[in-house]
């Protein structure tokens, strides 16, 4: 349309989840339909860019040195749930069923996508294990080839001398769901990880 508009649209289109049409729509919305929203958005972006960073301890989003979870005294820091991405952490938090701490790897091993161990937040995890504060690591990574490889790599590279219990989250039927509608892969893992009923 105009050079400046096209440039803005190009930048928006590079964002994840946005295609040509949606970037065009957002650009039009901000510039023409609701220009009043623009200054606030710019300020919010700048502020977030200035203050949001990775938590020095777990890799979660933080505004200070530590994230809200690591700073919370009531959380059990001896049980650490290892996840791939921040949204995974948010999902587990929303379930309100976990009161321990987290560790975010920011990815999983995938040579196809050029992701190696150096790209993951592993050094900080090793340091946490070495410090002796961790009694149990819960591996909540996805159960695909890359997730399993990352779990294997991670457990093989824990510092020795510290007894840490390593567990893997279960994979099975969704709550409230029946056997009938589950796919065969899910049913297999549900059967594999069955437990004694008492």
């Amino acid at each position, binding site marked *: 349309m105009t050079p400046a508009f096209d440039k803005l649209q190009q930048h928006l289109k590079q964002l994840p989840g946005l295609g040509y049409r949606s970037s065009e729509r957002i650009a039009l919305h901000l510039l023409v339909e609701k220009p009043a929203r623009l200054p606030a958005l710019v300020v919010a972006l700048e502020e977030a860019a200035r203050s949001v960073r990775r938590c020095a301890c777990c890799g979660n989003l933080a505004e200070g040195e530590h994230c809200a979870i690591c700073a919370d005294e009531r959380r059990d820091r001896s049980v650490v749930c290892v996840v791939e991405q921040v949204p995974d952490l948010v999902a587990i938090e929303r379930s309100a069923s976990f009161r321990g701490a987290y560790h975010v790897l920011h990815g999983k*091993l*995938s*040579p*196809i996508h*050029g992701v*190696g*161990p150096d790209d993951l937040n592993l050094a900080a995890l090793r340091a946490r294990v070495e410090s002796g504060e961790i009694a149990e690591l819960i591996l909540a990574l996805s159960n*695909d*080839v*890359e997730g*399993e*490889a*990352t779990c*294997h*790599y991670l457990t*093989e*590279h824990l510092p020795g001398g510290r007894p840490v219990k390593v567990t893997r989250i279960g994979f099975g039927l969704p709550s409230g769901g029946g056997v009938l509608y589950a*796919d*065969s*892969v899910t049913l*297999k893992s549900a059967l594999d990880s069955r437990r004694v009923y008492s």
Partner: protein
Amino acid sequence: MRLRKLTLRHFRNVGFAALEFSGRQHFLVGANGHGKTSLLEAAGFITALRSFRTSEQKQLVMLAQHTAAISCAVEHEQQGDTQLTIKLRHGDKELWCDQTRVTRLADHLGKFPTVVFSSQDLQLVRGSPAGRRRWLDLTLAAMDAGYFRALQTFTRALAERNALLKSGRPADQELAAFEQTLAPAAATLIELRRSGLQVLAKSLEASYAKLCDGAEPAGVGYDPNFEEADADALLARLEAGRARDVQFRTTLVGPHRDDFHFTVKHTAAKEFGSEGQQRSLVLALRLAQAAWFHAKSGVRPVLLCDDVLGELDPARRRRFWSAIDHESQVIATGTSLPATAGQPDGELGTWQVFRVADGDFAEEVAAAEAPA
């Protein structure tokens, strides 16, 4: 399983076609390039959402069109009357089974079995190992969810390991991380390929004997790249072979390099088999595949014969028809009705004949002669 209605829209060179099948045997007759094979291709597509002619889905959509659709009414031994609809867009396919969208191939695979007999099948004897592996994978995965799962895991883990080897910076620990998932999946594949091929070999031997009047023994044998179906043994082998793998930048050992071979009179058919022997072998292999599908699922596959019988002599043609299961639905194509070539075969019963011209399929009402 029987196909009762088949509708195509913008599929290959067929703009629109709606065929209603009655009875068990159907013959499509017409000149080359008018859409006979396209119709069989569409019928075969419902099994694994793959074409037996191409892996390029783009080629399936008619030129200058965006979407192609296959729709069929199926009479099914287990699921009753079922309506399947497949929509093909460039690079995308959608499957609907009785108005419900099926999103996982694993949930569909093998439920609607078809077996295609095509002149390209000769490549299974003469061609490269990759073609034979593809056939074996499709045959086994269609009937065994465990095989399909192992194949998916193995393929993915192998791709990751090879990407690591190609990156030029493979660390042993990283290779080991992917070997952990690769080896058990590979062991499953080796074991299931071995047991599957044993069953298929027996069935092929029986079919071949029927096709050739029992004159000579025939068989298939498994040539695994790594013999032991044991994850720990393969893990050790992968570890020992890492240096070589790094040098060649690819994984040199594993079921991705498996093969199988055909024999006639205990000698290799690829090198020493005659044209006729090789043709009979692939027909016997397809018959074995059909028997395998039926035995494993209890569903009789629809047999799709793409102009294969024209290449056989009358005696073999007759024996071919007597070798197939007489309950299975057969859809065959040819450039002429063999009956008019002077070889009617009374045992075959009545065929429903469709004349094919320019993507148009017209049922020939008066056709009572039987193609042989």
